[in-house]
């Protein structure tokens, strides 16, 4: 499952006084099995972009294709597209509406016309994936749960559709450290063990440094950097200029090099720094 965006532009309120070019000639190839972090400031167009990936928004010009097929083509089954590409909005817990957790998660699969055994299997699997105990929570009202739990119920509703591509728009916004770690661990597991292609919007360079296989940086409706975390974080000046910065470990690496320490110039995770500093310490005869 691969996606290709070709010369995608999107203009909001075209022809009115509020006309705004949100996406400006986006060209991207999203390959199966990638974990893409999409970063950039509020207003850079990243939320607009993710809403294009499952056809919620239509490009003003340009095309988006899934496995070679134009997603806005006449013959395209839009419902099948939304099943393949699952989109988790910001604050998805605001969209919960059913009486019980089980009903809320099964809403999508039911609409797919699946039989009740398959629906039940999917609900149980989705709840397991988001670490919510079925026996304990299935019959609870989603509105009696904590914020972090509600968010996991909302994500489970998307997972129950068994999407090949999972798009998450700032899934950890507003959560405390424990809630954040739970969501990130879950996404990591879906990527590594299930092979789900992940596209995640994030503001934390430190979080994505250890998770993403690729980082796409957007600014003013355009893609301005696209590469592995190592490649992107090596562009410190550009990242500072955009105002996103680089992970703390990458900053430490550069600060130590500036002080004359013999370190590679492209380390960006605490683990890498830990290893490199330890090696220097041992070379120096420390114990």
């Amino acid at each position: 499952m691969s996606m290709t965006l070709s010369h995608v532009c999107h203009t909001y309120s075209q022809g009115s006084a509020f006309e705004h070019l949100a996406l400006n000639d986006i060209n991207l190839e999203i390959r199966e099995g990638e974990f893409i972090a999409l970063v950039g400031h509020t207003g850079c167009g990243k939320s607009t972009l993710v809403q294009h990936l499952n056809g919620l928004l239509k490009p003003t010009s340009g095309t988006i294709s899934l496995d070679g097929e134009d997603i806005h083509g006449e013959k395209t089954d839009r419902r099948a597209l939304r099943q393949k590409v699952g989109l988790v909005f910001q604050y998805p817990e605001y969209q919960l509406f059913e009486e019980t957790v089980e009903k809320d998660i099964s809403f999508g699969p039911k609409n797919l016309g699946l039989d009740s055994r398959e629906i039940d299997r999917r609900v149980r699997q989705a709840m397991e994936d988001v670490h919510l105990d079925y026996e304990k929570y299935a019959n609870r009202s989603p509105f009696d749960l904590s914020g972090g739990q509600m968010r996991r119920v909302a994500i489970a509703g998307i997972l129950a559709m068994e999407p090949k591509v999972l798009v998450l728009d700032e899934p950890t916004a507003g959560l405390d450290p424990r809630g954040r770690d739970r969501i990130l661990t879950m996404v990591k597991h879906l990527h590594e063990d299930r092979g789900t292609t992940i596209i995640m919007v994030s503001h934390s360079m430190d979080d994505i440094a250890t998770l993403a296989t690729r980082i796409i940086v957007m600014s003013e409706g355009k893609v301005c950097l696209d590469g592995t975390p190592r490649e992107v974080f090596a562009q410190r000046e550009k990242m500072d200029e955009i105002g996103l910065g680089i992970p703390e470990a990458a900053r430490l690496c550069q600060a130590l090099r500036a002080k004359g320490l013999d370190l590679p110039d492209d380390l960006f995770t605490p683990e890498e720094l830990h290893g490199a500093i330890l090696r220097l310490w041992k070379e120096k005869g420390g114990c």
Partner: protein
Amino acid sequence: MSDDNRILAEDVTYAYEEADKNAVNHLSLEIREGEFVAVLGHNGSGKSTFAKLLNALYLPSSGRVLVYGMDTADDEQLWNIRQKAGMIFQNPDNQIVATVVREDVAFGLENLGVEHDEMVRRIDEALESVHMTKYAEKEPHMLSGGQKQRIAIAGVLAMEPSCLIADEATAMLDPKGRKKVLDTVRRLNKEKGITVVWITHYMEEVTEADRVVVVSDGETAMIGTPREVFSKVEKMRELHLDVPRMTALAQDLREDGLPLRDDILTVEEMAEEVARLLCP
């Protein structure tokens, strides 16, 4: 009003109806005038409940809260307490009441019956303090989340409070908005001497506080300067809270035998320490 200029929580307990345990459990704390006190805790730790006890939104089930000498249980003092200790909340969209920024800032003053000229002066000053003067005539819904929070702060400032209580005021903002709001509050603390109680679960927002109070299960789990609190890496992790990344890295390296300081907070301090050990 007495000349006591502290906020005092004395053995305060608060239980929600039908809850099987206390949300705040025998908590005592003294907040001195001009202090920037950060209250850190995970969701459900009781930190927001505690905040609401500080300006009489909730009343203690037992114990008492004194705001500048006024007991929050004393009905007569309610508006004096709220004027002394203003509060801002998490969701920027839930705090805007008017259709024009300047009117939103005026809302509290109108309720106090402040004279027109005095009101204009206070609104202008409050907007100036949060660097939002040029938005005075704008519609609030056209502003970003961070700008809306600064308008909410201006609304509190117009009441000329001695203390600002912020309950996760940055949780719904992007990094730029968070920084602006926090910078604004820090400046008000430094320049105007306004006491700040900053409630958050973001560790990086508290590293410059005068004191950090870590709340867990409704009780004070730790209290001290940011350096003292974060140096207890294990304890913080037990409480499901973050420690600064550099503090954690230094701790891991210390376990491998490197004699690094245990109270490192920033990249700069870490670079300094490592260079001291390793540079020729």
